[in-house]
């Protein structure tokens, strides 16, 4: 039985340009998992990171922050969105007991994505600044390896950069909910992929039947800060098919020096 909690998926990611992959997500995560090789379009990926970060890491393009190298990298306005639509692939293990649930979490993706796990497809809707949580309990293999492929699409409105540059290029990026500086500003040249990618952490999260969601902690103060109360509100979700009786515990501790804890 897996222990509860979070495991980040930080290593072993591969990436490939979508136009160079002739397989579907279902095939990639069942019969035809990718591998690197001299004729393979797959390279080591930056996750969390961006498409351009991956290309720089693999020296496919030069680092845009040095000299005039950014001018040598094709802008998404000229290449089209498909050129910077990328597959990302990895594997992970899971060993769940009967009552456990597994969530696959993306803390942020720019800008939308299709997720394939062991042949099953799920969609991550648009928005650069939102968390995504997929209940994959019924999809993962009870023991052994799971195959995960993510097709990441750039912002819907990457815009184009006027010859004179300016704050935010032609401002098309403002139509989306994403960072705006990526069309260039008075302090930075345009980011050629508009920061497309899995730009924040990916993790798997194991819980029992009940999950804690987004607690909120608030303190109130009285008597010149001598009398203080901590208020905590949380959402709880019961994903089992029966009523559950729970003990909900809140504990506050301080950390003394030398990794000692006062409870």
């Amino acid at each position, binding site marked *: 039985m897996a222990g*509860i909690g979070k495991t980040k998926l930080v290593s072993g990611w591969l990436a490939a340009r979508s136009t160079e992959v002739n397989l579907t997500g279902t095939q990639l995560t069942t019969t035809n998992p990718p591998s690197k090789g001299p004729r393979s379009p797959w390279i080591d990926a930056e996750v*969390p*990171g961006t498409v351009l*970060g991956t290309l720089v890491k693999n020296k496919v393009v030069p680092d845009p922050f040095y000299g005039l190298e950014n001018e040598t990298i094709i802008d998404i306005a000229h290449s089209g969105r498909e050129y910077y639509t990328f597959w990302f692939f990895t594997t992970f293990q899971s060993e769940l007991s009967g009552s456990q649930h597994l969530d696959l979490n993306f803390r942020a993706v720019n800008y939308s994505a299709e997720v394939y796990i062991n042949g099953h497809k799920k969609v991550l809707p*648009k*928005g650069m*600044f*939102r968390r995504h949580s997929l209940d994959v309990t019924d999809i993962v293999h009870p023991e052994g390896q799971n195959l995960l492929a993510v097709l990441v699409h750039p912002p819907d409105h990457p815009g184009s950069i006027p010859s004179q540059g300016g704050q*935010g290029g*032609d*401002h098309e990026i*403002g*139509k*989306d*909910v994403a960072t*705006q*500086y990526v069309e260039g500003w008075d302090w*930075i040249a345009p*980011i050629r992929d508009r920061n497309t990618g899995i*730009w*924040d952490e990916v993790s798997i999260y194991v*819980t*029992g*039947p*009940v*999950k*804690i969601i*987004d*607690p*909120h*902690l608030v*303190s*109130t103060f*009285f*008597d010149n*800060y*001598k*009398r203080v*109360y901590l*208020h905590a*509100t949380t959402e*709880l*979700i*019961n*994903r*089992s098919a*029966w*009523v*559950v*009786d*729970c*003990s*909900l*515990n*809140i*504990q*506050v501790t*301080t*950390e003394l020096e030398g990794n000692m*804890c006062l409870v």
Partner: protein
Amino acid sequence: EHLQTQRVSIPAESRVQYTFPQSANWQLFFYKPNLWWPNGMGKQSLYNVVITVDVKGYGESDSWGHLFGFRKIESHIDSATGGRLFKINGEPIFIRGGNWILSDGLLRLSKKRYSADIKFHADMNFNMIRCWGGGLAERPEFYYYCDLYGLLVWQEFWITGDVDGRGDPVSNPDGPLDHDLFMLCARDTVKLLRNHPSLALWVGGNEQIPPEDINTALKNDLKLHPLFQNVLNENGDSATGFS
């Protein structure tokens, strides 16, 4: 230092919201806890808060933890200067702040980078960082180091004057195309970051007021919860607070 347990029953396949305390007898009370102070005003005291849920017949089902700082942040617009004045834990503070966009333009973000960036600001004797609307809603790791080093954070949402209605020529006068998406992202971002003691101020955008429906929704969502809307008397005691 403080442990409290309450019993909860949750229907099958459902979601509930639960608040500690449920009554005056079940309050998490602290007598003169160490307060969290911004850089230069005192120590950044932090407490570990852990919430766990144990299911009868199963065991521990989930656990959540967060570093928490006891602090009160107040601000108002000064009628003489038009500037915003801040008080922390009742003490006025002179804000020494810096503008911030990101740690790396290609989003090569890491704890190591954030630690260096934020500590640098603290070493420069800053006590506030302002996250510009054309950049990111910063990540929890950024806020962790701001909690640790005492940098208050002014976080803007993703609206700028240049791109959203005040540029030349004017573009996107009504902001992003999908206002519901903007609000979904804003609400999720607030939930992601709201427990950090360094988070001091939400601002609708840079040099621009968000579209009216977004602005109204943000102001409504971020207003003080009615539970905490107590009138304070001269001694700072709540007129209708806990006894």
